C-alpha cells in the first residue's frame, strides 16, 4: 500500500483525490507535477530543504514526555510532538518552506496562499520574505476578524492580505479566491497550498513536506521508549499535520491512528466542521473526498472555534485511510477543546493552539482508558499565542 500511495501518478487515494479543476489550471498543475517529480528525490533539493529545516525552522523539534499530564490522567504515557516550537510556532512552516524552494526552482516571482487561522498565511509570508518573493494571502473576512494578530504578522512580513467577503467568509471561500487569483496570474504565480487538500499533486506534495513530523517522532520514540507507540492522535481540518504524523506509520499496523475533527457546537447541530462524521462523498476545491454538503450537493457552512479546522472537506488521503479502516476519525466540541487548552496550560506550562487543543481533548478521553505501559504520541501542531483573545472572550475576561 505504501508504494501505491508513494508513486501516485494520477493522485488517487483509492477513489479519492484527482484533479477536478478548470482546464486553465491544468497546465499549472502539470508544470508543478513535473517540477515536483524532478526535485523530490534530487539530493541537492533535499539537502537545501533539510538545511533550512534545521537552521531556520529549528528541527528536529522534541518529542516531549508530558509527565504531569500523564500522571494526572493515570493511563497511557503521553508524548507531545512539539511542532509548536518550530520557527513561527506551527507545523505549517515545514510545507511552506518545501513549496517555496520548489517555486524558486520553477522561476516563479510571486507566491499566493489561502489561510484559515492565519498560521499558513504567516508561514507563507515568512518564507516569501526570506526568499524575496512577492506575496499575497487570501483570508476569509470572518477569519481576518478572529485572527487580527496573525493578519498583522503577515503584514509585518511584507505580505498583502486580501480579505475575502464571499460565502461564509472563512477558509473555504479563501481557497476559492486564491484559486481564482492563481488562474488570473498563472504565468508568474506559485500557489502555495497549505493543507493536504486540493487537486493533484498538492495532497501528495504537502504530505511529503510534512512527513518529517512522523519520521522524527518514530526515531524519537524508539530512542525514548524502545518501541513504537500504540496510538497517534492529531487534529484534522484539511489534515496536513495529521498526515505528516500518520504517513510514516501507515505500514506499522499495530500503531492506531486517530484524527480529531471539530464538532463545533455538536455534530447534531448545524454548527460544526466534522466532515468525516457527517459528510458524504463529493468534490470540493479540485479533489474528491468526504464533503459537508446538503441534499442538493451545495457545500455547507462550517463552524469551529478554531479557524484552522473550519473546513467542509478533508484531505483525500484521510478519506482513504478512513474507508480502508486504517485510521479512525472522531470529533470534539468547542467546549471540550477550550477545556483541553486550559488543562495543557496548567499541567504542562504549554499554551497550545486551539486546533491542537482538539487533539488534546481526545487524549484526555483516551489516555485514562489505556494501560500505563501504553504510549500515545499526540501532534502538538501549533502554539496558542494567536488564540488567547478568543480564549479570553470565551472565558469572559476583558483584555
Amino acid at each position, binding site marked *: 500500500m505504501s508504494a501505491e500511495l508513494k508513486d501516485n501518478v494520477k493522485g488517487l487515494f483509492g477513489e479519492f483525490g*484527482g484533479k*477536478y479543476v*478548470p*482546464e486553465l489550471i491544468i*497546465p499549472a498543475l502539470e508544470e508543478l507535477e513535473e517540477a515536483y517529480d524532478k526535485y523530490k528525490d534530487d539530493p541537492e533539493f533535499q539537502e537545501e530543504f533539510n538545511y533550512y529545516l534545521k537552521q531556520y525552522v529549528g528541527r528536529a523539534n522534541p518529542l516531549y514526555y508530558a509527565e504531569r499530564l500523564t500522571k494526572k490522567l493515570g493511563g497511557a504515557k503521553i508524548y507531545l510532538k512539539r511542532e509548536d516550537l518550530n520557527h513561527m510556532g506551527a507545523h505549517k512552516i515545514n510545507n511552506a518552506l518545501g513549496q517555496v524552494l520548489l517555486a524558486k526552482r520553477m522561476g516563479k516571482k510571486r507566491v499566493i496562499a489561502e489561510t484559515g487561522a492565519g498560521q499558513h498565511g504567516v508561514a507563507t509570508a515568512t518564507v516569501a520574505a526570506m526568499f524575496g518573493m512577492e506575496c499575497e494571502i487570501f483570508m476569509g473576512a470572518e477569519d481576518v476578524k478572529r485572527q487580527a494578530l496573525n493578519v498583522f504578522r503577515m503584514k509585518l512580513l511584507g505580505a498583502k492580505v486580501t480579505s475575502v467577503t464571499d460565502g461564509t467568509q472563512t477558509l473555504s471561500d479563501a481557497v*476559492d479566491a486564491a484559486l*481564482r487569483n492563481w488562474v488570473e496570474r498563472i504565468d508568474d504565480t506559485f500557489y502555495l497550498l497549505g493543507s493536504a487538500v486540493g487537486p493533484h499533486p498538492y495532497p501528495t506534495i504537502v504530505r511529503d513536506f510534512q512527513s518529517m513530523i512522523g519520521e522524527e517522532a518514530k526515531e524519537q520514540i524508539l530512542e525514548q521508549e524502545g518501541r513504537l507507540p500504540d496510538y497517534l492522535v492529531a487534529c484534522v481540518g484539511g489534515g496536513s499535520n495529521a498526515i505528516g504524523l500518520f504517513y510514516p506509520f501507515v505500514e506499522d499496523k499495530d500503531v492506531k491512528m486517530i484524527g480529531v475533527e471539530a464538532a463545533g457546537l455538536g455534530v447534531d447541530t448545524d454548527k460544526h466542521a466534522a466532515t468525516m462524521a457527517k459528510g*458524504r462523498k463529493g468534490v470540493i476545491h479540485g479533489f474528491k473526498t468526504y464533503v459537508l454538503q446538503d*441534499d442538493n450537493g*451545495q457545500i455547507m457552512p462550517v463552524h469551529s472555534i478554531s479557524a484552522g479546522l473550519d473546513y467542509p472537506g478533508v484531505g483525500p488521503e484521510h478519506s482513504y485511510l478512513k474507508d480502508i479502516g486504517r485510521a479512525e476519525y472522531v470529533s470534539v466540541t468547542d467546549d471540550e477543546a477550550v477545556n483541553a487548552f486550559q488543562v495543557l496550560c496548567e499541567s504542562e506550562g504549554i499554551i497550545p493552539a486551539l486546533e491542537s487543543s482538539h487533539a488534546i481533548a481526545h487524549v484526555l478521553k483516551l489516555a485514562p482508558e489505556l494501560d500505563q505501559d501504553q504510549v500515545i504520541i499526540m501532534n502538538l501542531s501549533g502554539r496558542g499565542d494567536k488564540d488567547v483573545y478568543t480564549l479570553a472572550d470565551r472565558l469572559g475576561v476583558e483584555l
Partner: protein
Amino acid sequence: MSRIATTFARLQDQGQQAFIPFLMTGDPTLELTKELVLEAERNGADIIELGIPFSNPLADGPTIQRAGKRSLAHRTNLKDIFKLVKEIRTESQIPIVLMGYFNSIFNYGLERLINSCEEVGVDGLIIPDLPMGEDEELRALSNEVDIISLVALNSSPKRIKELAENSQGFIYAVATLGTTGERGEVSKEVKAKVEEIKSLTSTPVAVGFGISKPEHVKEVASFADGAIVGSAIIKRLEDNLELLPESEAEFINSVGEIVSTLTSPLN
C-alpha cells in the same frame, strides 16, 4: 444528428455564427427563467446555456456568482431544472446545454443525470471542473447528450489535440486567463487558439468568457462558429430586478433587448 449539431450545420449553410446566451436557472425565479429563455430565442439566441447554481463556483467572476446566490436563495436544484426544461420543450426546440460544477452532478448521480437529460431534452453539458482525464465515466454513460469540452488559452498542443478528438457538440474556447466576467477587449491570442483547434477538428468552436459587447461578438464571429455571453446579460438582468414583480413584461423585454443588441452583428 443532435439538436446542437443540426443548429451549427444550419448556421454554417447560411454563413452565420451561433449566439449562445447564458442564464442562471432560477435567477430570479424558475418561472422567469422559462420566459427569459423564450425571449432570448425570439431575439436571436441559437443555443441556450443554463447555469446550475453552486455554492462554490470556482470558474465564475462576481456577476455570475451573484446570479447563483440569488438562485440558491430559493434552493434551486437539478430536479427543478429538469422540470423547467421539460416545460420549455413544450414550446421550444432550441438546443439547451446545462453548465454546472461537478459536485452538483456527482451528488445527483452520473447515470441518473444522463437519463434525466435525455428524458427532458437537455442537449449538452458543460462542466468546467471536470477536465479531460476526469470525464471518462460521464462520457461512457452518455449517448445522446453532448459532453462539451473546454479549451483554455494555455492548453498545450498535445492536450488540444486530444480534446479535439474527443469533442462533442461544440468546443468551448475560454477566451480569458481567468474567471467569467466582462472584459475590455478580446485578447489577440484567442483567434490563434481557435484556428489551432479548427485545424484539428470539424467540431464547431464557440468562444466564451469575457465576451460582453456587440464588438466582441463581431470579432469572435470573424474566426469562430459561435459566441457565448453570460455576465453582460446577467448584469442587465440584475440592473432591472427592481422592475419586479410589478413590471414583469418590461423586465423580460430588457433582457431580450440586450440579447438583441449583442446578436445584431451576426445578422
